[in-house]
């Protein structure tokens, strides 16, 4: 067996792989937006008073937390077109990006919903009562009193969720989208697998750098946002 590695070439591969970074960023941002909107709806549902809606929201969260992302991708990418075909709708020509963004959006929305629920419950009940006592209505009280406090509490968890979402974008290659890992795979297959090790290490380093940057960003934001505020019970 021939094992010859050229670790000096890793920076070159990193530059080549980075050309696909905009695709990863696009997946990350769109699915982040979807997961936040969907997560807010699910969180509102799970905090509501209607037992049926509470049960559906809880069920959705626990379902999404139990299913591996890969299986959800396959369900949507391979399974959904078959079901819709049966209903006479053909979606096999849809952009592949749709499937990966939908998967990550759905999967992350459960984590986002849990985060929002925990942050909402962490805000002292007295705050809402105090807001009502000065004559605020429900939405105003939420927007001006509860939300700013809950947001501060949620920042560390939000940072974590975004990092996890970023890591999961690496599964985009499974539907054939050329994100950074897809690009790495394309590079290795173009050279018949000769530089597999170097390219995968290069991809790993790119993920490492971005994750550390995201982590620092989240810490910085937390510091800025909670400065001078009484830290609510975490």
């Amino acid at each position, binding site marked *: 067996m021939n094992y010859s590695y050229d670790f000096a070439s890793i920076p070159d591969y990193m530059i080549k792989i980075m050309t696909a970074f905009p695709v990863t960023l696009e997946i990350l941002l769109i699915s982040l937006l979807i997961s936040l909107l969907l997560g807010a709806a699910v969180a509102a549902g799970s905090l509501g008073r209607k037992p049926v809606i509470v049960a559906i929201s809880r069920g959705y969260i626990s379902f999404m937390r*139990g*299913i591996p992302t890969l299986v959800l991708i396959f369900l949507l990418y*391979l399974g959904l077109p078959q079901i819709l075909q049966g209903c006479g709708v053909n979606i096999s020509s849809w952009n592949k990006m749709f499937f990966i963004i939908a998967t990550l959006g759905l999967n992350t929305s459960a984590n986002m919903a849990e985060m929002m629920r925990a942050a909402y419950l962490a805000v002292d009940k007295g705050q809402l009562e105090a807001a009502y006592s000065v004559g605020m209505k429900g939405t105003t009280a939420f927007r001006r009193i509860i939300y700013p406090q809950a947001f501060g509490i949620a920042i560390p968890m939000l940072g974590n969720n975004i990092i996890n979402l970023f890591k999961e974008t690496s599964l985009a290659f499974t539907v054939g989208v050329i994100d950074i890992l897809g690009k790495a795979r394309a590079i290795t297959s173009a050279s018949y697998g000769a530089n597999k090790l170097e390219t*995968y290490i290069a991809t790993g380093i790119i993920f490492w750098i971005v*994750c550390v940057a995201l982590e620092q960003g989240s810490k910085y934001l937390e510091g800025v946002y909670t400065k001078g505020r009484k830290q609510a019970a975490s």
Partner: protein
Amino acid sequence: MDFAFMAEAFPQIVGAIPITLLMVFVSAAIGWVLGLLFALVRRADVQFFSQAVAVFISFMRSVPSVILLYISYYVMPAVIYFYGQNIGIEINVSGIPAVVYAIAALTLNQAAYASEVFRSAIAAVDEGQFEASYSIGMNKTQALQKVILPQAMATAMPNLGGLFIMLIKDTSLAYYVGVYEITATANLLSMPTLNFIEAYIMTTVIYEVLSFVFNQMFRAEENHLKRFRAVLAAQV
């Protein structure tokens, strides 16, 4: 829905559960022990080692599991081969099953996450507990073993449960290094007849059941430890 296919494929997919559970249990067992060691090394603040462990943990937590699996799959054979040459044995690396590489990657990933869990759990134990143990003549090891770790475990248990569920889900990625676990088996069976939706609905159900069962088990253990801590608090 092709029910004949489902009836035929279901036992085969269920038959792949042991491989998934093998990866899960081995990775969790070794990974959590390693994680505890890492946490203690970082806590002890040993020169060089603590920093090295911190960098390693940061890398392992930042890189997606798929890439870790790929790196393990392509690095480990070379490492094992060269190690064999160094000690004078020609090791046939192609004879090593892929599941070994998958377990290696998942173990190190778990170790990194678990070390963070243990670190924060140990930090959450009151400093006075250490001082109290020393004051009655315990040394560091005894204090950790008899006083600190039992309390830290109660704090760590919910997070460890979360890690365990994450690990179950991550084993589905072992498909990409050629391990025939649940997802791979389902994919393989569905390919010839294109029964994707049936195969993946069954896979989903299996994963949901596994997650549910282990979630309940961890919750029971958590309550058990909590009660233990409540008793402690009552005695104080």
